[in-house]
């Protein structure tokens, strides 16, 4: 039975990974069709020369950096607060935001923004996308950092305070340094989640804030393109690397 299981597992891993591997190989195809005609880098050159693409990529990076900064800081403080004191409604709300279908989170944010815009002279744009990304990634930071906190000994902090440290100082000098790997893992996670998001972003983006996933979506909608194969390969390798790094940090 165990040999049968091994063969099956091989097939299952092929199912999980082969589509992306094939896509990667074909991004180096000389032909623009799915017929193999030999190796070429021309789709990567075309990618580098596409100004709309580069602009969308720059937007995505900027949005992801802002969202990561806000969500990581707020989420880390929140995890620490929840470690000290139970706040059932906040935990419940974070949990709900974690399981809420993306499309629901997206339309709710859109309705909220439109309602706020009645009173303020603002429009959809980069800022609304950043806040939306903070909204859906906050809970991820709390989960990751809290799981790290649970491995710590609260006695260390109490000792610091017994020796005269204020609670803030004890957090800053005793607990925070021990949390660094967890916080870094959470930040990498938020960056990839934000960089990847299409469903929520497309609902709350303005005219000046097209992101890379939005561009990928509109191309994929029309079918396939060799340039898209190249973009996909770059993203899978780049984001995959970040995730592996995050996993390392979490285990550290």
């Amino acid at each position: 039975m165990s040999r049968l299981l091994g063969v099956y597992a091989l097939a299952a891993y092929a199912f999980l990974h082969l589509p992306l591997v094939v896509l990667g190989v074909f991004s180096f195809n000389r032909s623009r069709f799915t017929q193999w005609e030999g190796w070429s880098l021309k789709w990567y050159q075309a990618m580098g020369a596409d100004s709309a693409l580069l602009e969308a990529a720059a937007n995505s990076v900027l949005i992801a950096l802002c969202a990561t900064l806000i969500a990581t800081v707020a989420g880390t403080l929140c995890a620490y607060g929840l470690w000290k004191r139970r706040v059932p409604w906040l935990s419940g709300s974070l949990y709900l935001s974690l399981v809420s279908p993306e499309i629901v989170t997206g339309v709710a944010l859109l309705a909220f923004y439109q309602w706020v815009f009645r009173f303020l002279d603002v429009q959809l744009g980069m800022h609304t996308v950043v806040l939306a990304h903070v909204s859906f990634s906050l809970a991820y930071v709390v989960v990751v950092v809290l799981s790290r906190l649970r491995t710590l000994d609260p006695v260390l902090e109490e000792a610091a305070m017994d020796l005269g440290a204020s609670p803030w100082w004890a957090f800053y000098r005793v607990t925070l340094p021990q949390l660094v790997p967890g916080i870094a893992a959470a930040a990498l996670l938020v960056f990839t989640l934000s960089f990847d998001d299409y469903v929520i972003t497309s609902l709350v983006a303005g005219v000046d804030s097209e992101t890379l996933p939005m561009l990928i979506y509109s191309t994929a909608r029309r079918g396939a393109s060799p340039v898209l194969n190249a973009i996909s390969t770059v993203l899978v390798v780049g984001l995959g690397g970040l995730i592996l790094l995050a996993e390392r940090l979490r285990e550290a």
Partner: protein
Amino acid sequence: MSGGILAMRSRSKPDPPAAAFLAPSVLLQALLFLCPLAIIAGYSLLSRGAYGGVELAVSFENYQRLFDPLYGAILLRSVWLASISTLLCLVLGFPLALFIARSGRRKGLYLQLVILPFWTSFLIRTYAWIFLLRDTGLVNTVLTAAGLITQPLPLLYNDAAVVLGLVYGYLPFMVLPLYATIERLDKSLLEAAADLGATPWKTLWTVVLPLCRPGIVAGVVLVFIPCLGAYLTPDLMGGGKTIMIGNLVQNQFSTARDWPFGAALSLALMALVMALLMAMSRRRGGQQAEDLL
């Protein structure tokens, strides 16, 4: 006396200012998650205005429309596609979880190989299947070149393609909880079954599977929920024909411009998700949320 000093010292030590640490996320969570939900809840009770706006006329009409045969069919179809996908994930995921749990030192690596594709862009993984399955895609090109077919097979833009996309997307959600329960199984029970003459298959069927029930329940719920609320997969792989709840919601907020009905649909979907999660946490006797947060 010394007890008195200790008591005094612990009284003079101020409580950690948990409220100050929580303040930023309380603000963010209230403003960017709870407020939007409240607004959606409010909209769901209003009516659609003449020009696609919202009219202040309170009614439950939007909820009644959920039972309209036209929309009811879409809800049922979503439940059906999500159920098929979940069942396939269970059938495909169980042997994989069993394999990982039995693979000794390489366990970590094999587990990572399951998790990794899950974290790489969902959009790109969906696109990879479009690249493979469309009329001029790799599968049809290879089959035509091999002389096996003359007309391209209609592999994309149908229900089967949507199910494939969902299974591909959410298989890791099934494998992880299954692996966790198989891993925790008491090995001596399996040895006892073997000692008493059970074949490996019989042990699997009568000992392992029943003991894995909590993992199976968790996996089923964790896969079913995102499948039910799926938007991207039916949108890209189902073409225009396969509409699920997620697409219906998006449609109400874009082309149909019927926000109140879209809001009611969203809340119904959310209620369904919460009911499922509560059923699961009761089944497991533990509190899911408490484990995590």
